[in-house]
């Protein structure tokens, strides 16, 4: 049969091209390859490396205890973070001076806003570290977190006090003090008091 004599058609050129990539050209001079370009040899080498890493035994997954320690460690970092900001904030506050200007007012506002929003989001901040094992340890961390944020608030209060915005002196309450009323009044008559 003629059909049996049919041999399969030759593969297209592009298949041939794909199967046999051109031989790597000799490097002309010292021009380096662009980054990410891998010659056949390097690919080969890389594959061999993969080969070798695959050869190493797989790392042991961390135990829950280890995970907990890690989480607590991370949580401590989060709790201490506001305190690390404090010196910088303090210097900034000192530099802005005590005058009431829009810039210093904005800074003071930010100073209050950051710790207060942080305190509002206290449960969320440590949720990712929450686990049955870390629960007790996180309590202390949370307390420190609150304290450090309160420190930041304290810095803000100090700044506001420096700016004279806290009603801490007698003059701040002067408007609510009333003049003493005399029980008697005396009036000048006939041009005496002119």
């Amino acid at each position: 049969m003629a059909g049996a004599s049919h041999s399969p058609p030759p593969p297209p050129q592009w298949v041939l091209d794909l199967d046999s990539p051109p031989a790597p050209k000799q490097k002309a001079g010292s021009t380096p390859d662009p980054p990410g370009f891998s010659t056949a040899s390097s690919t080969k080498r890389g594959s061999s490396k993969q080969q070798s890493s695959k050869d190493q035994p797989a790392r042991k997954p961390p135990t829950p205890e280890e995970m907990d320690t890690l989480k607590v460690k991370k949580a401590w970092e989060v709790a201490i973070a506001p305190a690390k900001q404090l010196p910088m904030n303090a210097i900034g506050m000192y530099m802005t001076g005590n005058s009431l200007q829009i810039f210093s007012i904005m800074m003071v506002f930010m100073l209050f806003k950051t710790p207060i929003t942080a305190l509002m989001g206290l449960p969320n901040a440590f949720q990712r570290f929450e686990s049955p094992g870390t629960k007790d340890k996180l309590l202390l961390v949370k307390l420190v977190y609150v304290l450090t944020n309160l420190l930041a608030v304290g810095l803000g209060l100090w700044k506001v006090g420096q700016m004279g915005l806290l009603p801490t002196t007698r003059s701040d309450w002067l408007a609510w003090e009333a003049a003493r009323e005399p029980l008697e009044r005396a009036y000048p008559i006939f041009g005496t008091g002119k």
Partner: protein
Amino acid sequence: MRWLALLLSGAWLVEPALAVFADDAFQIDHHVPLLGLPQSHTTFFHQPYAKSKASLLYTLSDKAVLGAINPRDGAIVWRQALAGPANSSNIFLRAGDGQDVVVSGVNNNIAAWAASDGRLIWSRNLGNALVHDLEIIELPDAKGNGDVLILYNDGHPVVQRLDGGSGNVKWEYIDKTGDNAFQVSTSSAHVYLISFHKAIMSGLKIRVTSLDQLTGRETDAQSLSSESDVTSPEQILYVGANSASPLIAWTDKANKALKVNILGTKTIVNLPINNSDEDDSPAITLHAPHRSTALTHFLVHYQSARSHWADVYHVNLAKSTISKAYSLPKLAGQGAFSCSTVDANVFFTRVTESEMILVSSASHGVLGRWPLAKTQSPLLPLRVTAEVAALSSSSYPTRAAVLSSNGEWTLLRNGDVSWTRPEYLTGVITATFVDLPEEQGLVHELELEGHQNALAAYVHRLTRHVNDLKALPSWLQSLPKTFMGSKSGIADSPQKDKFGFRKYIILALEDGRIAALDTTNPTSVLWSKRVLKLGPGERWSAPPELRASSRKPGIVEVWDKAAGRPIELEVETGIEAELPDSPVLGEHQGFTFELADNTIHAFSPSGHSNGAVSSSTWKFMVRTGDRIVGVAARPVNDPVASIGKVLGDRRVLYKYLDPNIALVSSVNDATGSLTVHLLDTVSGTTLHSVSYLGVDTTRTIASTVAENWFAYSFTLDDSASGSSRGHQIVISEMYESPVPNDRGPLGDASNYSSLGIDGGSQPVVPHVISQTFHIPEEIQYMTVTRTRQGITSRELLVTLADSHGIVAIPRQLLDARRPVGRDPTADEVAEGLVRYHPTLEFDPKWYLNHQREVLGVKEAITSPSNLESTSLVFAYGLDIFGTRVAPSFTFDVLGKGFNKLQMLATVAALGVGVIVVAPLVRRKQINQRWQISS
């Protein structure tokens, strides 16, 4: 830090210095330059220089102000305030015919002034002697200056002829006979000294000494036998001068005959007094020309209570006889005559209540008769000065300056009123601000609403607003006008005056009248009303007290000390208000005190000095030899916004705010000391007292009290030993305690009694700190700006007699806590304190009168406006001056630079923009929702 402090204090210093802004000057202030009542013998028309066609009207008034008036419009060309309180017999003003000087004589000072601009040419002081008479010799010397003859009494009568150009003495004649000098007179050839010689029995003999004009030697002396008629110099009716035949005239005792002597002759001519009237003693005045070339005619003016008439006489020089030429008919009412000359012709101008008549001295034919327009108040002419221009034989245009008995000075030009000057306003003795009745009405309504329950108040307000809607159409009509023409911030009608700049000023005049002005236009008097019958020359015994009535808005109470009840006048009309139960004297709601007989008397609320003596609570007497020169009390309504002074470190120094305090200043002439006492006026206790030695006690000592401070000024005696000379002002501040944050012995008590009702036995003594500053000028009077709530900082207003000004000194500079001898610390700088400097110069910007010359102002009053920033000021004395001050700037009202049209245009442009853009935006938004973004 130090430079910062300096910069800050410097920047702060600049601020209060801007008292009057250039665009406010002449807008917010009003000034009435006045002269005083012109005197008949010192008022005349005169050409300011020889070839001048127009003449000016010169006068030396009863207030010793010399001025030249433009007869065309009544504006003052120039004026000079001459020294001294003069009585009218001691002031003289003369001008030689065709000469360009006017010569004045007031008290002991003779001065010659350039007639056209009022510059001083020369002046001569007589020392202790007072000038008795002043004449000008008509014949000028080569330079055109007429010499001046003066008579003064320096133990003996002395006549001097002064050189017209320099004032140097040419010759002098001393009368050593022991007679009393009376007057000096001139004819074309002679100088006559008229003196009184005491007759043996009684009466005075008139002695006429003739002197040679060139040498001053006595040529002749006549003694006239007048002793039976004349007992005092006032009885001499007239002494002519500068005439071909100077006259002296007096009446006999029975007032039946007029005795006239031509000076230099011995004969006394008896002229019968033409008294057909039932009135037995009419007042007689003589009018004769003051020019040697004029005809020797004179007019005798008779004025009785109901009518007036006149006789004209001719003098025959050759025969020394006097003959009656004709009589002017008797006319009802008051009249006045004036004699004027044109070349040799003599004219008499007669002004009556209804017409103005011109006659020639030669014949009784009337040359001009002009009826006067009927005015609201009848013109009662007192004195007339007239000028006649003889254009042709048939036309005699005449203008006459008439002083009417109500003090208005009017120029009648052929019977028409050219101008009127309110010269009586120079006699203001006291004044007060009274709110408009409408404004008070609104305040009343608001108070009413405040005291009702919420629902009733709401209904009340609703009905009030509905009633206000009635005014809407007229308001809408006036809206464009308001936008375009809101220049001065004052609306035309009182209803629209939201800022409270418009108030009535009620004035008490020294002649017993009450007058009213409007602060927005104080140049015109709204009304004047006589409340006290006073004869000519009489004055109020004590200044009356003017007070806005507390019982009904728009009423002013006039309290005269003699009367027990006030006269209540409506401020808008001056009509006496009829209120049911008018208050009686002593119905003040508290204690009262007054200064009388060098003692301060205080009375309890139950009565007053007219009532029981037992109601007197205390008396304050100064040491023997001392006399009280001033009492200043805190204003009755003196709101204070803050009861403490905040220090730089934010501690509080509490102010001593007792409303019952008065500052009494007394001087001792013998020791030259000034003592200032601070009294508690309820108990009479002295709270504070300071004495100064080496004070010139003859100079004015001004003082004032406000809030928690008082100030006074005095002049140091330059003969006393001391390191300091000149004028000083002392500022003292009172605090409850020297320690900050401490309220003193009373602590937190909410009320207190000076009488020890609730435990305390003595009034609390304040802690007083003072500082003294040298000032460049003597202060005549001082007062304080007042605002509605006392938030605005204060200014001390002082009137200056020497520089004719009113100065507002910022209180920040007059601070008793300025650091002495060192720069202020940072805290003190924050408080606004600057380093103490012993001299306080008056910054030219502090002068409220800026370019105006406010002459002779004695007192100033202030009143708050509806705007917290602004205080109204009114000053009186001679000139009338009113302005507004904003010590902390007009922070509550838009400035004049604010462009309302631009603002409206901007709003309109934005509105149009919104309308145009709105559909675009809407389409875009809709598209956004329906189109899927690829």
